């Protein structure tokens, strides 16, 4: 991890941390532009881009018509030209009208041009449940992006990482899908330095050390893992928590290390289980660390349904479910 440089630190929410990354990168580099629905005068529906249009004008803070294919497509065309566009998708559930531009174009142009063209762009978007958003304001579609070679996929779990990962994503030469856990947009604060810094892509963070079981997760679920670890500790079970931070490319070394240490694995995600991201981690472990496993790899995930509105609480993974999963693998 890049050394954190400078003194002026403040307690910021994730919204504030992300906004400060945008602001500082736009100040640093004229080629950084942002585009999306309602990001100008409205400041974005979560106010992440508040005030940026006043500072940088409508040519660099581009309010767009209501068309995700246009937002992503235009961003790709800008990136090919040499700008560094950051596209906002208002909720990640609405990325699908522009999905073709993402998987067919953004992800593959470097490859199909044999490296002549690159697509240095970021798509940032709030994802996930817990805000009474129902089926179309709650999804966690990371599995689609990860199954697409050419994309990088980043999910911060706290304000410090959010800023550093976003800056690293903006500076990255390849397209990055940056998924922001909206449930904790304002719920969690952390120390965030005032100047620019990078949290490198591809590196996981060990957010809790433990010796009995490894809980591997990311994004908003890190909070749930921490809560579970608290409950487990009361029972004498010390859980190690690995926050992947980057889902693609993921930190294989960190995964192997924790699995070798504990021998027990629980994987935790919000998305439905079948075909979800954690399947990849399970598969990786089953191929490369099977000799360390002392119990089944248990997945805790959203149920394999659409995301419900009234039954949201029943749907979302919670600490109790994680505890049960841990016991399942430990008592194997």
């Amino acid at each position, binding site marked *: 991890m890049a050394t954190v440089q400078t003194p002026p630190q403040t307690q910021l929410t994730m919204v504030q941390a992300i906004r400060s990354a945008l602001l500082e990168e736009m100040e640093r580099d004229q080629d950084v532009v942002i585009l999306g629905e309602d990001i100008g005068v409205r400041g974005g529906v979560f106010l992440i881009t508040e005030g940026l249009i006043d500072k940088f004008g409508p040519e660099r803070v581009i309010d767009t018509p209501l068309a995700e294919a246009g937002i992503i497509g235009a961003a790709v065309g800008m990136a090919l030209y040499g700008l560094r566009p950051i596209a906002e998708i208002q909720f990640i559930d609405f990325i699908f009208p522009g999905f073709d531009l993402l998987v067919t174009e953004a992800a593959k142009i470097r490859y199909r041009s044999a490296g002549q063209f690159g697509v240095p762009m970021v798509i940032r978007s709030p994802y996930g449940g817990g805000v009474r958003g129902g089926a*179309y304001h709650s999804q966690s579609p990371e599995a689609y992006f990860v199954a697409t070679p050419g994309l990088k996929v980043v999910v911060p779990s706290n304000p410090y990482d959010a800023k550093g990962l976003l800056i690293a994503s903006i500076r990255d030469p390849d397209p990055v899908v940056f998924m922001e856990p909206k449930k904790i947009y304002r719920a969690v604060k952390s120390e965030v330095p005032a100047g620019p810094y990078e949290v490198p892509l591809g590196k996981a963070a060990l957010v809790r050390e433990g010796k009995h079981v490894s809980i591997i997760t990311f994004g908003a679920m890190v909070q749930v893992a921490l809560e579970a670890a608290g409950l487990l500790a009361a029972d004498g079970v010390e859980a190690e928590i690995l926050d992947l931070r980057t889902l693609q490319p993921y930190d294989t070394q960190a995964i192997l290390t924790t699995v070798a240490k504990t021998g027990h694995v629980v994987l935790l995600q919000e998305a439905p289980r079948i075909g979800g991201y954690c399947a990849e981690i399970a598969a990786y472990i089953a191929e490369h660390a099977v000799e360390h496993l002392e119990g089944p790899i248990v997945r805790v995930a959203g*149920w394999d349904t659409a995301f419900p509105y009234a039954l949201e609480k029943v749907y979302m993974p919670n600490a109790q479910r994680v505890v049960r999963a841990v016991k399942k693998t430990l008592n194997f």
Partner: protein
Amino acid sequence: MRIEPFTDTPLSILAYDGTPKENPDSLGLGKDDYLHMYRWLVFVRGVDDRGYILVRQGRAGFYAQIAGQEAAQVGSALPLLKDDWMYPDHRSQGSMLVKGLSAAEWFGHVLGRTLDPTQGRLMPHGPGRRDLHIVPPASTVGNKITEAVGTAMAQRIKKRKEITICYMGDGATSEGDFHVGMNFAAVYQAPALMFVQNNQYAISMRTDQQTRTKTIAEKARAYGMPGYFVDGNDVLAVYAVTKHCADRARSGNGPSLIEAYTYRYGPHSSADDDTRYRPKGELEMWRTQRDPVTRMRRFLELRGWWSEEQEQRLQAEIKAQLAAAMEEAEKSPPPAPLTVFDHVYETLTPHLAWERAELAAELGV
């Protein structure tokens, strides 16, 4: 009113003050019909006002008001027949109520109770009802347009005399699905009404930021389809144009685009802060000078068909009706936890059965 496509100014029958510019009786409507229409305007406004209160009370997670757009919704839903299909968008509860959804169901929907025909599955911007041929809207803007056209194509294939109406906002016309749906509708001459409520905003984006055309209606030119530009706050004009297009579609003469020019009074949704983007005075102007409910009331008064006393009686009657509906909704229980697994597929897959058992164990049920 001559009903012509591609006019520069909106087609209208009533002036802003309710004076008829021409005799609306040529529509074939009589006193009872006018009173009926007015009652619907007052009723849907009442339902919506009550519904919105639920969010302010913290009892619902979301609400998108229709206030200001009642004439567009009532006027376009009244010409529909029982077997016609409706694809509402996230701001069409007025149309759904006219098509047959009950106020109690709507409140049940907003509260996420089992009285909701969609069982609390959706954020509250629209349940559906199969028997009424109302398809439940999703949040996603625009992607019901191609489906509505598919339904209209099916109606034509099956040689039924039915039509399908599809509601969308001005913002939705920027999505690719608008284009694709319009083109399919025209190519297959499907009996579809593409009904745009142009309330001048898509959240914060004004229509002139959304598109460079002066009207939405003229976009129909790109599909060889007629596009009608109508005053959406004039319930009679909306009714007349919709009826015209419905008849046309029903008799096999293909689809139409209708743009109802209107204005929303509330914020985009309960999560919005509209003071950030609305120019000062605009809302007040529309509310005081162009209100669709008041306009129709003035018309009735000019004809000598409506009095202050009748108004008060109507308000009281609707108030009571809505109180009863709300009570019914509140009594309705929320969906049971294990129902979360129902209806992913017609029958539970083995995997879902296993998950269901896991949850049952967790809950001890």
